[in-house]
């Protein structure tokens, strides 16, 4: 009679010594993790991203691209991702849009879920750097799986965000290749939303807003801008915002940047609400938390993300727009929601 492999006893729990079966991931007795080889996050099922490498050149139809992303036939720079994308993972949803004025969508987002936990990373390619989209797209794709696996393995949200930012930094450096003049650079903002806490970490000027129902909204992030540095050094805010290059970034991800950790803020909200993680394509039009809250309708995350994206487009859409909406507290279902990996309908 053949043996059912699931019933073969192969291990004892290393912590308490209780017998365990090979199919067990956790000890039945003490709950310790039995396997440290939990499968890494899989794109498409565990997480999704707005990035998608081009399969063929939109200009000439060629299929060979140089490592820097140029078509080997006609030399055109291939797109690093679609102009517009939208994803709905149930616990959160996001929309990224090229806007009206830019030729490429240099924003990127990646969304992931764990049971009862929503994860998001948004990066905005610095347009004054070369190939900013190469940086932002490499960054989110490297950051989200690391963020998800670290949270799953119990690293804690702050540590997970730091590990994820470091992974993004390494990926951005790899995207730069030998380029030293004006290497690809991007911002970074990540969010971990659990049943009890909202944690955000950032480098640059992409933002995270906490919009509670029936309480005062707040911007959790502080732009890493020259103006904020001046204010921190004692300059009156009015003077700081009027300074030349007040909005210039002082921190970013790129081989030409300092490699300090992201700033991290954790809150334990007492009321339900929404976390909005966005690029400055949205925040330039609704910078004050109260303005953004007033413009954010109630509803499921995807329609809200579309609504805010449209608002930015209607206001001018001068930059790429990326909006991720995370309802709080996350829905508590017994199973991991199956992400819908198909991009939602374009606007």
């Amino acid at each position: 009679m053949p043996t059912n492999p699931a019933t073969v006893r192969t291990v004892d729990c290393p912590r308490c010594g209780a017998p365990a079966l090979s199919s067990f991931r956790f000890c039945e007795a003490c709950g310790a993790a039995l396997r440290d080889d939990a499968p890494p996050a899989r794109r498409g099922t565990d997480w999704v991203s707005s990035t998608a490498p081009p399969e063929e050149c939109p200009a000439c139809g060629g299929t060979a691209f140089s490592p820097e992303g140029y078509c080997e036939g006609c030399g055109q720079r291939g797109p690093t991702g679609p102009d517009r994308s939208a994803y709905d993972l149930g616990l959160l949803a996001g929309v990224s849009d090229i806007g009206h004025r830019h030729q490429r969508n240099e924003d990127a987002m990646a969304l992931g879920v764990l049971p009862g936990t929503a994860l998001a990373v948004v990066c905005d390619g610095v347009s004054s750097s070369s190939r900013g989209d190469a940086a932002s797209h490499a960054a989110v794709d490297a950051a989200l799986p690391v963020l998800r696996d670290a949270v799953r393995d119990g690293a804690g949200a702050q540590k997970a965000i730091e590990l994820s930012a470091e992974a993004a930094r390494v990926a951005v450096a790899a995207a730069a290749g030998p380029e030293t003049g004006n290497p690809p650079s991007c911002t970074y903002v990540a969010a971990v939303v659990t049943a009890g806490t909202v944690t955000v970490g950032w480098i640059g000027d992409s933002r995270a807003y906490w919009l509670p129902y029936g309480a005062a909204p707040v911007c959790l992030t502080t732009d890493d801008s020259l103006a904020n540095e001046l204010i921190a050094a004692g300059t009156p805010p009015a003077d700081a915002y009027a300074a030349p290059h007040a909005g210039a970034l002082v921190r970013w991800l790129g081989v030409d940047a300092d490699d300090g950790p992201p700033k991290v803020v954790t809150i334990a909200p007492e009321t339900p609400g929404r976390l909005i993680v966005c690029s400055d394509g949205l925040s330039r039009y609704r910078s004050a938390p109260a303005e953004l809250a007033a413009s954010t309708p109630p509803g499921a995350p995807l329609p809200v993300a579309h609504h805010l994206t449209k608002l930015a487009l209607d206001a001018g859409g001068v930059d790429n727009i990326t909006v991720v909406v995370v309802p709080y507290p996350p829905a508590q279902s017994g199973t991991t929601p199956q992400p819908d990996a198909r991009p939602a309908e374009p606007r």
Partner: protein
Amino acid sequence: MTQPAFTADVYQNQYLAAGATTVDAMVTVTATGDGTGAVPAGGAPSAAEVIMIDCSGSMGYPRSRMTEAIKATGVAIDTLRDGVLFAVVAGRSMATQVFPGNGMVAASPETRAAAKQAVGRLTPEGGTAIGSWLSLANRLFAGVDAQVKHAIMLTDGRNQHESHETLMQVLRTCEGKFTCDSRGVGGDWVADELRAVASGLLGTADGLEDPAELPAAFRSMTESAMGKAVADVRLRLWTPASSTIRFVKQVYPQVEDLTARRVDVSPRIGEYPTGSWGAESRDYHVSVQVAQGSVGEELLAARVSLVDGDTVLTQSLVLANWTDDEALSTQINDRVAHYTGQAELASAIQEGLAAREAGDEDTATAKLGRAVQLATESGHEQTAKLLNRVVDVVDAPTGTVRLRRDASNVDAELTNVRSVKTIRVKKS
């Protein structure tokens, strides 16, 4: 000697106005070796050297010309490192081998001494047929196995005992087989001939007014040849479909148009010979005509690599971005501007001197005036000084000059042969 590390830096304004289709870029290629100079330690590529000495009758007048040439050849022989294959050729209306009796021989204390003894017996008699000398050198090189094959050619006169076509035919045969530096001594050599040899065989050309300068010149050419670490480096250029290459020029240390030297590798890729490299730095001007792009589009206009066989030594990208921001598109890259001026300076001198020789004084005055203006603007003092030997400068900034009646043949030939030497952008 360690394999030199190559770097390629691109200087360009990648921003094009809507409708613009010309992409110009300067590529500075630098090879950094161990930097110790002439005699590399073990691991240097194998080398072969042929020294061609003009022994025509005129070399005897003044006597010092032949004796300095003999001395210079001895210095070159002494500069060869042990084991380098070498031969000495006496050039007259025909070429004769001076040492060894035939073929080439490895340098050693014994062969150097024997070679110098043979060279010391050379006597000036007969004519000048440079093509026949190069043909013999080519046969000698063909018979040996060496990575770096280099020749020195010294003449004191016009190539009058064979036709110009014969010389050009020989040069085409020798192309890619060895590199050759050409030197003229005395007052009767012809700059165009020296430059044709150096240009075809990827070497340098120059004239020496005083025979006493010969030994130092021979030492320097041999040291440079002994310092070569990679023998056959080619500039590889990828350009996009529906683009055309306007030109590919070396622009530093001297102007050398490589456009016609292209060897196709594939429809998108061609290679241009650059000869052998030691620790040195050269600048190239690549100009590509691309299809018109729309504002916001970004194009890879060229990929420039230096290759040794199929090994890519270094690589850089030339980009084009179309923009409606005039502040960006109207910027002129200072290196592109500088070398465009240096290339024009070289042709203005050559055309001006050709017109002068043909008796067309108006064209000569205009061209040489323009040359004075360009030399002054770019701060090219050596060339400005040479131009002073053929024209009286009335006003340099406007290029107002008068042809000098007292200019000698050697004044004109020296100015001509050095016209291709460029300087780098001065820091402002």
